[in-house]
């Protein structure tokens, strides 16, 4: 009886695992990673603003880090606008 159940479980799981090998690959290329990185950069910008407002970051440091973050974000935004001009929503 145990052997029968074991073979049954093995067959069901094998069929499920193997099913994609006989179907069509529905994966599509998206630039989700770039979008996530841009989100992280924008979050970093907000953090920088709070640090500046609370006095943790000096005016010079704020200007320099903001400029660098903006440049990186602009580069990513440009890339996203090229590959995804209408957005995903």
């Amino acid at each position, binding site marked *: 009886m*145990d052997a029968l159940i074991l073979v049954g*479980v093995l067959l069901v799981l094998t069929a499920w*695992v*193997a099913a994609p090998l006989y179907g069509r690959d529905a994966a599509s290329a998206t630039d989700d990673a770039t*979008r996530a990185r841009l989100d992280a950069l924008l979050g970093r910008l907000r953090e920088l603003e709070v640090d500046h407002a609370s*006095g943790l970051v*000096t005016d010079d*440091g704020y200007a320099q880090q903001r400029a660098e973050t903006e440049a990186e974000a602009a580069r990513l935004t440009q890339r996203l606008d090229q590959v995804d001009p209408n957005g995903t929503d």
Partner: protein
Amino acid sequence: MLGRGLLFVAIGFAAFASLAAPASARRPELLVAARRAMVAAAIAIAGSAVLLWYALFARDFSLSYVWASTSRAAQPWYTFSALWSGMAGSLLLWCLILAVYAAVFVRTRSPLLRPFVPWAIPVLGACVVFFVAITAVFENPFARLDVVPADGRGMNPLLHSPGMVIHPPLLYAGLIGLLIPFAVAVSAMVTKRPDWIGAVRRWTLVPWLALGAGLVLGGSWAYTELGWGGYWGWDPVENAALLPWLAATAFVHSSMVEDRRGMLRVWNVFLATAAATLAVFGTFLTRSGLLSSVHAFAESPVGRWFFVFLGVQTVLGLSLLAWRWPMLRADDRFDSAVSKEGLFLVNNFVFLAAVFVVLWGTLLPLTSEAIWGREIAVGPPFFNRVFSPLAAILLVVAAIGSVTPWRRGSSRAIVLRLTGPAIAATVLAGVTLLVTRRADASGVVWVATLLGATSLIETVRAARARGAATGSSTRASVAALLARNPRRYGGYLVHLGVAVMVIGFAGSLFRTQTQVEVSPGGSFDFAGYTFVYRELQRFSPPDKDVNLAVVDVRRGGGAIATLRPQLNLHRNWDQPQSEIAIRSTPRADLYLILAGTRATSDDTVFRVHHNPLVMWVWIGAVIAVLGGLSAIALRPRRRREASTPATRQAAWTR
């Protein structure tokens, strides 16, 4: 047969996944199949675990493991936790947690993580194959007895604790989870993608928090069950779990530097490897019987296989590191030592020193025997003396780091921001010195208060700045800060919890204890309390003989508590076991142990400990866990800002 057979099924699916996933570069559908195979392996292992649970609850004493782990008198919770009370079952739990981690990981929807899945699967699959194979081959939990006994021996009485239900799974979740960042690091090295750190943040925080919580729960279990009056004894197996936590804590901090500045890339791959290797090393110590410990299982043949696995894991990690060294060059350079990243680096060196100290002390009995032919062991005094200064440095560095910006900080500004916390710390430390006349206690209070006050003040300062900008209240701003930047402000909450725990640790400097023999009706005085021994009750439930003492505690003439410690003799184990009675207050714990009774009379030996501030250890741990959970569970509130060109523009100009 079915339970063991499912383990072999799991091995088959995990092996298939390990081979199929790397080949998915040519045939993408293989990746989908590999993901499903990892899930199938988890289902098969879960099925095996469910069958063992069923056997435990059904009292199927034809299984050797069931006989050894439970009895007809066992309560349901202890029947449930019996699954991991012995070597074979605990390995099965290990496999189950690993397989569940792997199954959840391979189904990730994170766009940052997905590129690493194809080459992380072979690492995780190989781990599943290894651990399930040694379980099925060497420690089969479904092995049968020739003669079926009428009742089981039952679980070791020391494991009869509510903590036993949660502590091992939590600890395992911590140890095993550290294999995920390691697998992603390996994948990053193979695929030449250095951008893995941000992707693996949560997958690092979850095991780090689980391991930390598991360590504290283990301390709580030791405190309430083992009867020696303390919660941490620098036991080899405690140390074995502490080591990966120390490495993981270093990794949690240094990964922020890479995420933010693109620096410490080599270091982070090394730390991910070290944390995972130390996690397996900890399991190896517990399973091999190499070092004696109250936690260690009996010596087993799996020890040598763990040793082989450890070797392969270490060589793999370090070889990949060497192979991809040029790719791991930093994007940027340190602008100044007075910067958050500079302090994180100091923090990392201190954590590494702590790892070295604990590892050295733990392995000294082995290394000394190998080198000098005689065993030398070090105990708590050594660890306390060496570890305490390192911990103090870490607390101070954490406090300074909280008020230091990225890139470059002004020393003057940092000193100014630390002035408030330093004044608070100095006042409290001064009061401690006056009251206790102990410089060491005063020093501990100073560093803990500095960190706690800094964490609180910085959070309030940032909330006020945000409140001024948005017009919201300070309380609302604190919540908004936590929601917008859970990593930083969850981290401050963790620091606050650690500071509170350290205050609790300071109490251990003032522990006192005594041992008395007293007759019923008699009394004794200790630590300002009067203990009146009212009576000794003896009774015999099915599995043990119980001696229960009823002791009234008085102070200033009034009764404040009645304590009921027990000394039980478990018949199946033929060993005495104490149930300790504890009266816990924020000021101190009274910890009463019934150490022995006379056979011819009710005269009783009591051991009493007065343990100041222990409750703060547990309160601090709860605060730290809440902070960790915030950092993990809260997602930054900016998820969809980059979804469309319009929201991208809006987010940019806000």
